[in-house]
């Protein structure tokens, strides 16, 4: 049987995380599903959750006035969606749309923030893992901004 504990422990984002920390995370976790085309969150909404994608593809978009949304990244199985829950003012900066039917694990950011405040070792572990993701996405964004394929 797939318990929340096992799903968290087997997700690449939490690989090698101490078992005691995983037990703490389970209290903030729940299984969620989104249908293809659903918006998982929209820019400006309160950001109190992040998602471990288990199945399906999600588009991260920036809304553009009088223009269709601009897709800036896609995320798939094994990846993390959302880090705005981690930093005040806890608001989404982008919007996320389900490109397929999505299965994910939702982690309650408020709950997790509380546990990280109480247990700084857990907080440091979580921050290190998110910092790696943020660094990778910053590097990708810089490369996108360079527009290296443009005619010169």
């Amino acid at each position, binding site marked *: 049987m797939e318990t929340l504990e096992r799903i968290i422990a087997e997700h690449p984002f939490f690989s090698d995380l101490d078992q005691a920390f995983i037990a703490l995370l389970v209290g903030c976790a729940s299984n969620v599903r989104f249908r293809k085309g659903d918006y998982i969150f929209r820019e400006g909404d309160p950001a109190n959750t992040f998602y471990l994608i288990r199945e399906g593809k999600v588009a991260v978009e920036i809304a553009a006035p009088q223009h269709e949304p601009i*897709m800036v990244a*896609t995320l798939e199985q094994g990846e993390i969606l959302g880090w705005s829950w981690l930093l005040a003012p806890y608001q989404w900066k982008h919007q996320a749309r389900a*490109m397929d039917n999505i299965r994910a694990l939702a982690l309650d950011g408020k709950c997790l923030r509380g546990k990280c405040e109480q247990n700084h070792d857990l907080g440091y572990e979580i921050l290190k893992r998110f910092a790696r993701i943020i660094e990778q996405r910053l590097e990708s964004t810089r490369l996108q901004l360079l527009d290296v*394929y443009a*005619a010169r």
Partner: protein
Amino acid sequence: MATALQLDPMLSQVYVVSEVSKETPDTFTLTLSPDKGSNGSSFQPGQFSMLWVFGVGELPISISGDPAKHDRLVYTVRSVGQATNALVTRAAGDGVGVRGPFGKGWPVEKARGRDVIIVAGGIGLAPLRPVIYEVLNHRDDYGRLVVLYGARSPRDLLYRKELATWARQKETQVLITVDYGGMSWRGHVGVVTTLFKYARLKTSRSIAMVCGPEIMMRFVTRELESHGLSRQDIYLSMERNMKCAVGFCGHCQYGPHFICKDGPVFPYEELRPMLDKYEL
């Protein structure tokens, strides 16, 4: 097949445009056939030719066709200036001067028996397409074929039908990404390095061939190394302003190398000391 061209590298041979097809809004593929009485032309994947548009100028262009087809030469050209624009606007039946093929190509012999990782960015897929043909033409001689291809947007993707065909071949994985996608795009969005996490790689038995903008190649080499590929098993195709194509004029000098003669394909191990030098 030895040709008269190879005996006198400065002498152009007239080829005739037999087909021009539009790949993207600014990129076209030209198929050239030898004029009557001329020999065909063989080439190694990764080599290039000097194409002379009469009255306009001469350009170095990578050969992007199937190396098994000796009766034609195929080039994919992006129109970015006067000479390239003149080349892509040739009509069927027009003549084009061809010198070559020149340079050292991709290590297809060294790759035999191993998995082949192709990483291409933008028009960089064109010089790598002959390798893909070579692997698929001799499928049992190679291991898995993994093609990672990044482009600016969906409308900038080259060879869309072929990409879909290649993806259906046995032991072949084709992953495509674009930097920016619209609502109708169903594929990946992100730079080409983000594809590595979806690729099924056995890096200990792989050889990687990379072609694209130099910045992209620097990031790709880091990614390949982080996945365990050795520098000796990573090959890059370099681009500089080639004129004579035989190492006389020095226009394409890159550190101690002439790109036209010593390259355009180099082992990463050889290039690494120079890639981070902005003066070069």
